[in-house]
């Protein structure tokens, strides 16, 4: 099944690359057509189509060859805890809007504490450790390397 999915993804990607690169201009110098911007992506798309054909073929062969196993209860070590995965993805996704409003330090404390709690740390420990983490980030990036970290609209509003 994995091979089949991979093959289909590669096929879609390759077709998209071919479609997009078809609009790239030709590279003509003194009437002579030279390898232009579409040359390399087109070669890569053709290579990807070959790989996708291979993956789809292998995927189909495996699919029909192997008898389907009954669904079994997975062991604890094999279970995928999607909530944890989603928590990490959401923390990164919402980082920018959160720090734009709360500022980098407060943003890291809030999001860090929330993520740590979701990953099984007691809430008060999460706040302590995320505060330490935020301080460390501030000292290394803002104080030591003078990299401007976002202050946040809330802080700017309060200072005003």
């Amino acid at each position: 099944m994995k091979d089949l999915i991979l093959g289909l993804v590669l096929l879609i990607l390759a077709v998209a690359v071919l479609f997009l690169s078809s609009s790239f201009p030709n590279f003509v110098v003194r009437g002579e057509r030279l390898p232009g911007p579409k040359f390399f992506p087109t070669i890569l798309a053709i290579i990807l189509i070959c790989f996708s054909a291979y993956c789809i073929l292998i995927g189909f062969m495996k699919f029909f060859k192997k008898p389907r196993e009954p669904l079994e209860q997975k062991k604890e070590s094999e279970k995928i805890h999607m909530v944890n995965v989603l928590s990490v993805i959401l923390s990164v996704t919402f980082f920018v809007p959160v720090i734009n409003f709360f500022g980098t330090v407060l943003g890291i404390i809030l999001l860090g504490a929330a993520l740590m709690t979701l990953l099984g740390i007691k809430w008060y420990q999460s706040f302590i450790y995320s505060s330490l983490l935020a301080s460390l980030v501030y000292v290394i990036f803002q104080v030591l390397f003078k990299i401007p970290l976002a202050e946040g609209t809330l802080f700017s509003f309060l200072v005003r």
Partner: protein
Amino acid sequence: MDLITRLLDPSVFFPLTIAMFFGIFVGAIPGLTATMAVALIIPVTYYMPPIAGLAMVLGVSFTAIFAGDIPATFLRIPGTPASGAATLDGFELSKKGKGSLALTLDLFCSALGGLIGVLLLILTAPPLAKFALKFTNFEYFWLGVFGLSMAAVLSKGNTIKGLISASLGLLISTIGIDVTTGYPRFTFRNAELMDGVSFIPAMIGLFGLSEVLKRVQLGRKVMEIPAISEKSRLNVRESLIAMWKHKFTIIRGALIGTFIGALPGAGADIAAWVSYGVEKNTSRDSSIGKGSLRGVIAPTSANNAALGGTWIPALVFGVPGDSITAIVLGAMLMYGLRPGPLIFTESKDLIQQLFGVAILVQILLIPIGWIGIKAFSIFLKLKAGIVLTSVVFFSIIGSYAMRNSFFDIYVMLVFGLIGYAFEKLDIPLAPMILGLILGRMIEDNLRVGLIKTKGNFLPFLTRPISLILFLLIVFTLIGPWIFSLFKKHASK
């Protein structure tokens, strides 16, 4: 003398020491890799002089590879993939109450193996660079393809998936303005993509965030690390006696490590396993695998030596030896340095300092590594949730800090998800990184070569070095397949 003074200058020595402690910390925590440590340290080095930044990278990589052996010995959990081979005999010795001896021996062998690797780098890189000056577009094109094919063959998983990963890396490298015509490709009118995909956020995503996603999906109980029973201490005398007794194993391990490291795409993990395998097959010691000192010496002297080896193709040809040097090459471009044969003449001073730092790292590895062994139980007290959350936020801030760009945070996220999906589909990550870094080199040299020959591909195959490289690629890709056919035929 002047070189020593410059290396001991606080502006270099202090960041180097800090980086080495960071390397020990990351390497000793199972699941966090040396590549991830390097990817996380790069944004910090951005505002430093190149030599201080490169010193930090060297310090982190060497110490992280060694530190990976600490949990491998005490807990049978390799801290980094390069410690996999050290787990076998290290843990067996630990079960017999000789874990401290195994680790002390490991520390000394890592430093000595690393030193041999660095000395070989110093000896071989400059003459190789002179030879590399003969290379033209045709040879550089094949060299890039050779690097990718090696990475695809040697990385875990099957070769086809390695090649898919490499092709996807090449495809991503085409994003941005086409250098020859100035036409924006696959940018979707996004100004942030005009310069191409930012390399460092991509690396941080592939190695930092994807590792975190891989670990958190295991759930609370599984991602925690068990406690250790043995108290760690240094066992110098016994280790030195064992080293003298097995001196040829150390030298052999270091030579194997450097050679494998120098092959594009092969890193410390492969070097450690090959060295262990050679020792097991050639030695009369039947206790290898059951708690033999040889079984500790062979892989640990090879994995650190491999790091020196990986710098040979990186500095000489601009082709990374492994995923760590792939990140380093990205960082060098960021510092305004151009890896390749000319770096030995254009930045002679910097190269000398770099070699000096590499030797200094091996010397410092012993005291810092010893502190690492002592502090290991403290690292383990930190809960996985805290460590992983810290990695997530350092990945975010690290990606942002490179260009003060919020867009790069999302680049990091996308690559983190790609890395996670690759793990699920059993696709190796290393070829993609190599594809990403070698993409421009391969495309530019192919196109310029074709322009020179007016579209004729034949000169790519008729020049002697080009032809040798082409045959090497063919052999790399179909050699294992032919060998397995012969084996099957012979067994029938």
